[in-house]
Structure formats: structure tokens, C-alpha cells
């Protein structure tokens, strides 16, 4: 089923952040590279933090019909 492209997953964000921090902690970076990595890291941290702060525990349900089609609706149980 077609979906809008999704933002990177939380685990992808954290993996990239780990990588950025490891490279920043390494020895072979010039300041420009370090700044770029830092900027990216801050951006990703901000995104991850936003997700934690704004998460709202959404619940939906999948309804299937006899023909095997299904649709997704908000769950109001």
C-alpha cells in the first residue's frame, strides 16, 4: 500500500548519531568537517528529542472485508 515516505526511524537516527559522535571523538578531522558533523548531530538530536516530547501513543485499527481488502482507521475502543 502506498504511503508518504517516512522520516528516518528512531533507530536510524540513533545509529547515525552514534557514528557522528564516534567520528568527532576520533583524531583525524579538520574543523570544517567537525563543524558539519556537529551541525548534523544537533539536528538529529533535536529531531529525536522532538519525537520523544510530542509522541502521543496513537492507536489505529485494521479492518478487513470478505474480499480481502482492508483499511486503516483510528481506533476508538
Amino acid at each position, binding site marked *: 500500500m502506498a504511503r508518504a515516505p517516512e522520516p528516518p526511524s528512531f533507530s536510524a537516527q540513533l545509529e547515525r548519531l552514534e557514528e557522528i559522535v564516534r567520528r*568527532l571523538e576520533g583524531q583525524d578531522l579538520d574543523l570544517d568537517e567537525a563543524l558539519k558533523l556537529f551541525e548534523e548531530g544537533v539536528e538529529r538530536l533535536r529531531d529525536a528529542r522532538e519525537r520523544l516530547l510530542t509522541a502521543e501513543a*496513537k492507536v489505529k485499527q485494521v479492518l478487513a472485508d470478505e474480499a480481502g481488502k482492508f483499511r486503516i482507521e483510528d481506533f476508538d475502543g
Partner: protein
Amino acid sequence: MGVGLDLFSAIAPEGAWSVGDVTRRARAVIEAGLVPLWVRGEVSGFKAWQSGHWYFTLRDRAAQLRCVMFQKENRRLPAAPRDGMQVFVFARPTLWEEKGEFRLTVLELLSTEAGGLWQLAFEQAKAALARDGLLDPARKRPLPLYPRRIAVVTSPDGAALRDIMAVTARRWPVAELLVIPARVQGDGAAAEICAALALVGRVGGLDLVILGRGGGSREDLWTFNHERVARAVAAVPVPVISAVGHETDVTLCDLVADLRAATPSAAAAAATPDAGDVAAVLAQLAARLARGLAARSGRGSERLDRTLDRLAGAIGRRLERDRHALAASGGRLDALSPLKILARGYALARDGEGHVLKRVAQLPPGLPFRLRVSDGEVAARVREA
């Protein structure tokens, strides 16, 4: 039985009864004289017909009885009895008129062997799953660390779903729960669960499935011991947690699933990280990020270092303490970035090797250096004295 039929007329050939008269009368006598009762004996000559009805003989050393168990009764049983099995049947004695045969119409059948038919069916299905490698521990997949979308296959109005919703909302509200409704007990439950599990692969974008059931009787647990339900669990393309909710009985679904949880709440806890722990990880990363950059930008920049450290530390502590308090501090991370500092009009002076120039003594007359401003770098030189 013909109302006007006279028993005493049949003492003479002229008053002879028809065959049907006799079987009809005999049936009435048997059914009036023998109420439904429990009978025990050994099964022999068992045969399941195309119609779904079962035919067999019950016997002991002295005698035998023909038995029929109709499909509408035997469909409740997990497996058919085998020849030689000792069983109890609850049956109505009757006479099958067409064959003139005395027989039992069996309403209920219990095996007297350990675990009975349920155990027999369980072992048969388990052996079949093992043959296909579905019980191999190497098949078990690791659960995703930060699930985005979790499918829950369970009854939409059951306690299991409410528990899973509550635990997920508390621990990891980042995840979206997708309920795929299925009855989890009673007739037709197995088929509904199989259909719901099959949907998982089609919906897409799911990281994990919880197959859940609240409390309930041990008999109701049988749904999760159907071989086809276990196979449907095995066929799910993402990891499955089985939370069937019975401490003492392990079901086939539990054995095939990637993880067995004792309760639906435990399943939700196993499926999700704790947001507080994740906030602490983010805080650590923020601090390491700031220190990493400070180390890169030279020993001389203690001040930038301290500023970054303090900000990262402050944010880190707040994240750990209370992630909600963070909402107020939204702008702080912006301040972390040296590019933002440059954007406010500050510039960074560095020599040809990238060392930051902070003191007059580092800038003798005539020295060429580079000036980093918000959108790039320019070449510069200290004016000759």
C-alpha cells in the same frame, strides 16, 4: 410406532409385524429405558467418514457396542481417538432402524490416557512443526530496539488490548499501535487469528506483532494450539511476541513465536524501550557531541568548550530528569551550534594550520590568517605596524 399396533396380535402369523414395526418399537423401548449415560471401554475399528461423522466400536473383554459420534459433536475435540485407546463416552443408547443395529450416539468423548486427546493432538502438531524446522531456536528473531509501528492481534474489546495500550503509552508513546481485531476464543477464533496474522504482511511498515489474549479458561487456550495458527505465526514476516496469558501451559504459538511473554502487559514491556532510558541516551550523545567538537576546535577554545559542555550538560540533565520540562527549553540546542554563534556576528580566526587565534600575541603584524564567518571563510592579514 403405529398407534393401533397390538402387541398381542403378533402371537399368530396373521398378526405379524413388519420389520420396521419391530425396529421402531425396539428403538422406543431402548430410548425410554436407557437414559444417556457414561460408558467406558476401548476404541476399535475407528473410522472418520467423509461426512465428518466418526464410527467406531467400544469394547471390553466381554462385549462390544457400535458407536457413532456426529460431526456436530466431534468438531469440539482436538483430535480423533486412536484404536486401542481407553475412553469414556457420554452417549445415548439407541437403535439404528435401517440396520436393526443397537448403538450408542456419542455426545462427549474423553480419553483416560495422560493428558487425553488434547495432549495427543498437541504432540502430533508439535511433531509436525518440528519436522518443518519451525521450533528451531535459530529461527527466533531479535526484537527491534525502537519499534515504530506495532501490530496487536487480539480481541478489540478485551483486557489484553487495554493492558498493551496502557503500557505502550507509558513506556514508548513514539510507537503507533495497529489493532488487527480477531476473536481469541470460541468457534472460528483460529480462522480469525490466521486471517489477522496474514494481514500483517500486507499492511506493511510494521516492526513487530503482539499476539495477545487476556485471562481465560484452559480450554479456551486451545485456539493457540491449532497447528494452523502456529504456522500462521511462523509465517509472519516480522518478529512475533506471543502473550497468550497462561503461566502454566505453553502453547504451540508460544513455541513458534520469537518471544513468549507471560501476560499482554509483559509483552508490551518487552516490545518497547523506556522513553526515560532513551532520553538518557540522547543526553549522553549530546554531551559527547559537544565534547567531541570542543576537542577538535583546539586547546585554546576552552571557552567555547565550556559553553557547549554546560549547554549539553544542562539539556542532558533535564532530559534525564523530566522530558516534559524540555519542551520549554526548545531553543537551547540552537545555541549549542557554533555556526549559530557565528551567525550572531562573531568570527573565528585561525592560522594556516587551522589553529584558533585568540590572543594578540598570536597575531603578529603581517601574519596571514583565515577568518571563518557564518557563511564561509575569507583570507585576511594583520596590518603591518
